[in-house]
């Protein structure tokens, strides 16, 4: 049975118009996107993006169309997150981030699933997990602190319960994996390999190794080992999700790409803490929590900017996206796709609306595709890593 779908109007009344249930028309009937002279996805000389780059003052989205030549066709927003591996094709670059969309099926009443670029599921573990005790979420200024603790039914139940539904959607579902060892990551990948409805895997490298030590994402060798093990276990596209807390995120990015990651997602939440009202201890049941939302947006931009300069694979940027300018910023620092998490908790339709707004921005700038916007803020020559100094350089 087809799931019943309802289009919700925007809370807050920012754009309360009804959005029709149509997919963006594919590139087959759209003229090819304009390529730069070198054939790369650099901005076309003389285009508004290039202008923004040379003046270096405003993000592309803040520009009014300087020329009258708007593009009024259907904008090609397609993204391939695994070009080397048979493809992980997204109809648009707006992705539902892990955690905020559950297993997708919870949201069919409030989200037009077919119009989102992809959905990343909540973390899936080998065995069922009860999750963390006590309080799990708390609002903090410009963000959210959470400590859910990977509550879930385990990978086999996920395959039984949800994969048949995913297989009926045209939207790719990327399953987020969480495990305590490279072997367990590989076992998860093996069980999901070939399951209809599973379009790709995202490795939550912020997991803690069960035999002790720091999180995988903080150690290039450990992160690489996880990806190597998963790569051997599956032919599915693999996205490695990195943490902003690595000392040098570039080396982790290089390591996972060498190990065979098809794409990189960045960033995960940042470790934080909230204090209970009576100041008797931390507010969350487990003490620490992962901070998300606009509070971490500049961190996300910095990390994507650094990663994009050292690897060639597509990057799914995330961290505090609430509006189209945040999407354009992440694209500008090199993200090929953008994931929305915290802001979608209040407004699950936000990614779909942002995809429409991205198409509008492209039209206003006379672009038939969003791809020229990707990487427009990256430096011509590699910038020094943030690990070597941020506010002060000798």
């Amino acid at each position, binding site marked *: 049975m087809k799931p019943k779908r309802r289009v919700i109007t925007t*809370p*807050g*009344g920012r754009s309360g118009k009804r959005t029709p249930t149509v997919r963006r028309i594919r590139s087959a009937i759209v003229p090819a996107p304009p390529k730069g002279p070198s054939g790369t996805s650099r901005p076309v000389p003389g285009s508004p993006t290039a202008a923004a780059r040379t003046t270096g003052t405003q993000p592309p989205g803040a520009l009014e169309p300087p020329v009258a030549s708007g593009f009024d066709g259907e904008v090609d927003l397609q993204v391939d997150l695994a070009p080397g591996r048979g493809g992980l094709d997204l109809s648009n670059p707006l992705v539902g981030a892990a*955690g*905020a*969309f*559950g*297993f997708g099926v*919870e*949201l069919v*009443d*409030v989200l037009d699933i077919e119009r989102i670029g992809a959905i990343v599921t*909540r973390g899936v573990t080998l065995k069922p997990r*009860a*999750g963390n*005790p*006590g*309080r*799990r*979420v*708390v*609002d903090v*200024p*410009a*963000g*959210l602190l*959470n400590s*859910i603790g990977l*509550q879930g039914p385990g990978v086999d139940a996920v395959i039984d319960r949800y994969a048949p539904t995913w297989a009926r959607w045209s939207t790719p579902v990327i399953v987020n994996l969480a495990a305590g060892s490279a072997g367990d990551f590989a076992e998860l990948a093996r069980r999901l390999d070939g399951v209809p409805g599973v379009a790709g895997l995202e490795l939550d490298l912020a997991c803690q190794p069960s035999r002790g030590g720091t999180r995988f994402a903080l150690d290039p060798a450990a992160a690489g080992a996880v990806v190597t093990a998963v790569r051997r276990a599956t032919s599915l596209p693999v996205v490695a999700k990195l943490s902003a807390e690595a000392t040098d995120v570039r080396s982790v990015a290089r390591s996972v790409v060498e190990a065979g990651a098809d794409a990189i997602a960045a960033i995960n939440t940042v470790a934080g803490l909230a204090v209970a009202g009576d100041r008797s201890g931390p507010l969350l*049941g487990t003490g620490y929590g992962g901070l998300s*939302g*606009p*509070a971490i947006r500049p961190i996300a931009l910095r990390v994507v900017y650094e990663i994009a300069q050292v690897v060639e694979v597509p990057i799914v940027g995330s961290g505090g996206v*609430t509006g189209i300018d945040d999407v354009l910023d992440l694209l500008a620092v090199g993200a090929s796709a953008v994931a929305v998490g*915290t*802001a979608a*908790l*209040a*407004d*699950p339709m936000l990614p779909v609306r942002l995809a429409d707004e991205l198409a509008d921005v492209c039209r206003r700038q006379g672009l038939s595709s969003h791809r020229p916007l990707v990487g427009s803020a990256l430096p011509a020559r590699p910038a020094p890593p943030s690990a070597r100094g941020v506010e002060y350089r000798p």
Partner: protein
Amino acid sequence: MAVRAGQYVHLLRDDGIGPPRRLPIPVEATDRAGGLVSLVVPAGRDGWLARGRPGDGVGLMGPYGRPIERDPRSRHLLLIAEGDRVAALRLLMDEALADGSQVVVLVGAATAREVYPSSLLPDEVEYVVATGDGTLGHRGEVVDVVGEFEAWADQSVAAASQPTLEALARLAAGRRERLGVAKLGRKRGGGRPDAPGSAAARRRAYLQVIVDQSMGCAAGACLGCVVPAVGGQSLRACREGPAFAVDELDWEAG
């Protein structure tokens, strides 16, 4: 839209510096004729709502959640609340009074200043106050007063903090033995037991609770609001709750 007692709405908390966040607020009262929904919103730390002006719009979504169920045969309803959580029980008072039931409301607060004003409650309810410092009503916890009404009550509903709900759950567990009362229910003992989480199970329960949980998505996706349930399960306050029969939940866990 018919809101039932125990259900809640989400107020879009937009403090202007982050994305709007969902603040679950129980529905205090509704006026169908006037199309009004009234809510009692706790002040919170930053007072974002207090900065608004009369006439400003706020985003509101709902109603969400499963309601409290009253057994049609119960005539004496005992309501227990802490602080302004009593607002979550106001709709229930109206429903019960309209049915001709008698309602006693026990309210606890730290001090007299924090006692919910009785002027905001229906005139017909009996309002019993306990304050921690004894500045109004009984001195002590609201739980200490419950014993006086235990025999009188047919059914009870509580909206309080987790420790108070735990104490009430312990009281409710020993109630039948203490009082030697017959259980409201099928005359013959047989028949299938009510499905856990069903409206019938809540209707039959002596004590129902409204849990106080912070929520992320209210769609059942984020699992930020789960409460431990019997059998090692966990239930989402946003979907399976926020009203639960007391024996659905595991009061020893956590």
